[in-house]
């Protein structure tokens, strides 16, 4: 658990972060969202003490971070930095193994862990272990950055626009991977972005920041349904809200299940249980269907979703 109480950071005359209160529960993904310069990175850097806070209290699992050894604190916090910050003179494997190496893990254990993480992030260990950062594409470098942060299995993850500067498709893939990893390992995560869709997709709770203050701290659904101010309303897109709410819910929520899963007919297409209602609507509109079949991950047909129910209960 991370607690910020009335935390302020000034740079000369600028107040970058202004008396913020924020509690991030263990295992929760808190997404900080807001426009450029609103103090997101500064907040993150105060949590791992790269920047001292001017006033207020920051506690990690109840202990004041100023009473802890800075290096020890950081070794237990994976940090993914805005712009990757991979070490250009080290191979991918050595980059990922950095924190385990600092923690003096035995060689074989580090190698095994690196292998495991590369596989987890969909990078072929054979191909990538011995490559250098400049040989990677932007998306691959960001994956390595994420793997490096996960390496020593820290309890806390701090991620500063880890998927910034990527094309929409790669970005979405990485978001899905992050959700998948999060389901597996459940880390207390503080995630910074200025992309509201990314925030809605990943967060258990979103903290909307503006000019160093937290305007609203709530679940994605509540942020959409009950924005605390015009600023938040504009950020989430006033007119777009219906679709965004649909984007939060999986097809499984509204489908009419079959009594038993049926094997799919060859060539049949439809939706996955995990797909969003928004996607379902899009498919129905485009193919002009009154209803679509829903499949589980094994490819069995588990139910159908009708347009009528979707329109009634979607948002």
């Amino acid at each position: 658990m991370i607690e910020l109480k009335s935390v302020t950071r000034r740079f000369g005359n600028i107040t970058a972060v202004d008396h913020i209160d924020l509690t991030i529960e263990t295992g929760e993904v808190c997404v900080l969202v807001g426009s450029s310069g609103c103090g997101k990175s500064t907040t993150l850097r105060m949590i791992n003490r790269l920047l001292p806070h001017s006033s207020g209290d920051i506690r990690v699992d109840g202990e004041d971070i100023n009473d802890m050894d800075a290096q020890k604190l950081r070794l237990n916090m994976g940090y993914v930095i805005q712009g990757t910050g991979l070490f250009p003179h080290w191979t991918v494997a050595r980059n990922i193994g950095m924190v385990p190496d600092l923690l003096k893990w035995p060689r074989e254990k580090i190698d095994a862990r690196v292998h495991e993480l590369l596989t987890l992030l969909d990078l072929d260990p054979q191909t990538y272990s011995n490559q250098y950062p400049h040989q990677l594409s932007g998306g691959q470098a960001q994956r390595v950055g994420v793997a490096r942060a996960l390496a020593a299995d820290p309890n806390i993850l701090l991620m500063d626009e880890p998927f910034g500067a990527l094309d929409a498709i790669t970005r979405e893939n990485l978001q899905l991977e992050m959700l998948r990893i999060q389901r597996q390992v459940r880390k207390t995560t503080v995630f910074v972005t200025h992309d509201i869709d990314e925030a809605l997709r990943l967060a258990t709770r979103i903290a909307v920041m503006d000019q160093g203050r937290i305007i609203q701290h709530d679940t994605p659904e509540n942020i959409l349904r009950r924005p605390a101010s015009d600023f938040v309303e504009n950020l989430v897109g006033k007119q777009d809200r219906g679709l965004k709410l649909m984007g939060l819910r999986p097809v499984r929520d509204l489908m009419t299940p079959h009594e038993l899963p049926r094997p799919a007919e060859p060539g049949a297409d439809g939706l996955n249980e995990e797909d969003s209602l928004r996607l379902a609507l899009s498919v129905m509109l485009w193919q002009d269907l009154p209803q679509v079949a829903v499949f589980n991950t094994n490819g069995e047909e588990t139910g159908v979703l009708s347009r009528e129910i979707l329109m009634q209960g979607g948002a």
Partner: protein
Amino acid sequence: MRVWLSPIVLITALIGLCLAMPLLEPVFQWVQPDKQSVIYQRESFLFLLQNHVMLVLISATIGTLTAVAGGIFVTRKAGRDFLPLVSQIASIGQTFPPVAVLALAVPVVGFGEGPTLVALVLYGLLPILRNTLVGLNGINPAVREAAQGMGMSPLQVLVRVELPLAGRIILAGIRTSVTINIATAAIGSTIGARTLGDPVIAGLVNGNTAYVLQGAILIGLLALATDSLFEAFERTWDQRFSPQAAGA
């Protein structure tokens, strides 16, 4: 291994020529027919070479240690305040001609090897200092932040990340410094240091072109050998630390 071939050949040629110079007497006789002695004999060439190299080596070692330590200090939190001053000295200092540095050293330290060494250290320090600053300041701030933010101690950040990344540029600074100092050390002969500049000075004073040639050829060869030695060093460094430059 091939990178080391050319420095080895050049160094062998240099030492060989020092030893074999007397054998070339007929050639120099032809160059300078009106003189009885055409081979410089006051000291052996090997002794002069050795002395010359020692001067450069000692000054380069002191200069490198001082400049790199200074460069590191002014890029730390504690020394930040001195950074502008030190950068300025590093760039202005180099506009001083080496002869002027030597001339200024004499009244302070006297004649001989001593003042030459002082001048070499002071003068040789500057390119190294400048490159250390360029190298350390040129590191992507995100890389430094990642190193620190993931739990490296300040010393680990310096040794594992900053120095390897800045090292290539620092090495280039040492190369420049040493190259300049090989020439500057030769001028040291005018103030009593015994170097490969001796035959040149003696030749100029006595109007003996043969002497001048012998000194000049050896100094040139020494400069070439040193330069190719650094070339080999830099290649090796690239393979170890700069995958980008090495095209790995």
